[in-house]
């Protein structure tokens, strides 16, 4: 059975090439669309996910990270004394203007945090260090935005919202989904860049004590600090992701493209596997006349589809790897990880098996008496 399935698939090299091209095309399409969607979704909440905080204290009804409204920074001291709180730090995320040396302006998101504590700071620092942000006017940007911000090296001086800013380091791979680059700096400098009054902050990040019940700490903060919301990092991350992916429609567009990729891939694969089955229709008729039950014929077709899926998936993933690699420097956040690779493999198997079902339906209706028709 396996031998027949393999030979049917491998015998006609042109047909095999067409079939595999269809599957590879579908796999690459799905990987890129799905990778873009996941990359996009994770980018929207990357500051929260990498903050290291367990809880976020915000002003009331903040829909997503970028829309945090300032509140009295003295609440920090109220939070710090809540049982179960190991550390609490002020945090700013605000849009402002970056003046390039050539006079052009760019909108950026200034991110202010306490460099001594590290909560809410940058990650993947490839040049300079977080400590350097404690120096006067020290800022850190991502390498991917060097061109956009007109930055070429550490030490260059720019202006943010009329205040001096000196580049002290670079990160790699911290993209802002809004395309407005993140500029990391100390909380104190961020207040100038935002601008924000000295007694204000947009968030308080909380690290709970080891073993503390996060929900209980949250309840305690809400009981002691007035006019704030307290969210776990996971909740705030989900809220932010949901806002950007669903409310703005941007995520829906990418998700639809991913679904469309899946449908197009399915149609391409169904068509090629159907054509392969049609090429061997008389043989399937002979098999049935010889006494093979329908289940035997189905297995042959499903094995053909599975072998095609495995080969197509492998080639598709190799090609996708190259595409992702070349897309990274261009600023396209295509994400690929282990569970996505496994999911896409299962999806490819499902797609090929589903496509085979279309062929099976045709073979089921096959009249074995066709074998007597010359």
């Amino acid at each position, binding site marked *: *059975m396996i031998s027949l399935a393999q030979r049917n698939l491998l015998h006609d090299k042109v047909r095999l090439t067409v079939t595999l091209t269809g599957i590879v095309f579908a796999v690459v399409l799905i990987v890129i669309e799905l990778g873009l969607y996941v990359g996009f979704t994770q980018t929207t909440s990357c500051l929260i996910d990498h903050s290291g905080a367990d809880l976020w204290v915000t002003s009331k009804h903040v829909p997503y990270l970028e829309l945090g409204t300032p509140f009295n920074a003295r609440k920090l001291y109220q939070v710090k004394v809540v049982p179960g709180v190991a550390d609490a730090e002020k945090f700013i995320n605000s849009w402002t203007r970056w003046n390039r040396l050539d006079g052009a302006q760019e909108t950026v998101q200034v991110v202010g945090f306490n460099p001594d504590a590290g909560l809410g700071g940058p990650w993947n620092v490839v040049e300079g260090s977080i400590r350097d942000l404690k120096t006067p006017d020290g800022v850190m940007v991502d390498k991917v935005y060097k061109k956009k911000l007109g930055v070429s090296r550490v030490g260059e001086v720019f202006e943010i919202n009329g205040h001096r800013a000196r580049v002290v380091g670079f990160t790699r791979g911290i993209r802002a989904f809004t395309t407005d680059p993140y500029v990391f700096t100390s909380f104190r400098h961020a207040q100038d860049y935002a601008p924000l009054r000295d007694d204000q902050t947009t968030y308080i990040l909380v690290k709970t004590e080891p073993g503390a019940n996060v929900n209980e700490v949250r309840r305690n903060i809400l009981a002691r600090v007035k006019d704030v919301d307290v969210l776990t990092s996971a909740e705030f991350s989900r809220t932010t992701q949901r806002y950007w992916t669903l409310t703005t429609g941007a995520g829906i567009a990418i998700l639809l493209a991913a679904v469309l990729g899946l449908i197009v891939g399915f149609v391409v694969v169904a068509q090629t596997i159907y054509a392969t089955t049609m090429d061997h229709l008389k043989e399937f008729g002979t098999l049935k006349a010889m006494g093979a*039950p329908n289940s035997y014929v189905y297995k042959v077709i499903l094995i053909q589809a599975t072998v095609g899926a495995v080969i197509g998936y492998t080639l598709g993933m190799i090609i996708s790897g190259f595409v992702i690699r070349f897309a990274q420097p261009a600023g396209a956040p295509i994400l690929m990880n282990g569970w996505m690779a496994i999911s896409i493999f299962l999806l490819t198997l499902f797609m090929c098996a589903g496509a085979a079902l279309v062929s099976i339906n045709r073979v089921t209706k096959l009249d074995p008496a066709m*074998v*007597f028709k010359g």
Partner: protein
Amino acid sequence: MKAAIIVRDVTKTYAEGGASVRALRGVDLEVHSGEIVMLVGPSGSGKTTLLSIMGCILQASSGSIRIAGQEVGHLRENELPRVRLNHIGFVFQGFNLFPTLTAGENIELMLDLKGIRGPQARKRAYELLERVGLADKFDVVPANLSGGQKQRVAIARALAGDPKIILADEPTAALDSHAGRTIMEMMRDLAHERGRAVLIVTHDPRVLEFADRTIRIEDGMIDESAPELAVPVELLVQNKAQGVHNWLQ
């Protein structure tokens, strides 16, 4: 001799557009183990329909069909493959070998259906090819075999299931006279020496000399005026094919 196939009052009606076409009209027929029976008749007479029903490929509209003692007329469609697999071997006009498989693998595929696999299947396939004189073609694909060789592989495949009944549809139509004769000698040996019931549908007058009985069918009915057709001996001896053909007509 024991009857391997008994057909009683079998009819078959096809729906064609709004009308119905009666392909078989009350056919009675028996084929016994150890005999070779030829089924002849003009095109559209119902030969292939009868062969398909006897081969459990097609279901009759009415009547009784017994295969190796088992009534199969009332079996459900999904039960028929098992009857075909256990009792019937087919030989087709167009050989119907699997082009992507070698001669040996074509036979192994039939054995696979019977649940015989691995070295045992390979050994059995080799023996069957040896029996039809093609042991040296075990690893050759059908495209590289002559017509006669392909039909011999097809016979070996049909025998792989060890069936008691062989049904052949125009087995010599695509072959030259020498290859056709070789095939018919094999068919005759299967009937006479190995006790198989062999039914051959044919238009080819050259093969009639191998028949123990020749049955003529016309307009979906067995021609009772010539139930056991005897071909004039002098035509067979002289192998005047056209003469036999004219005589049949």
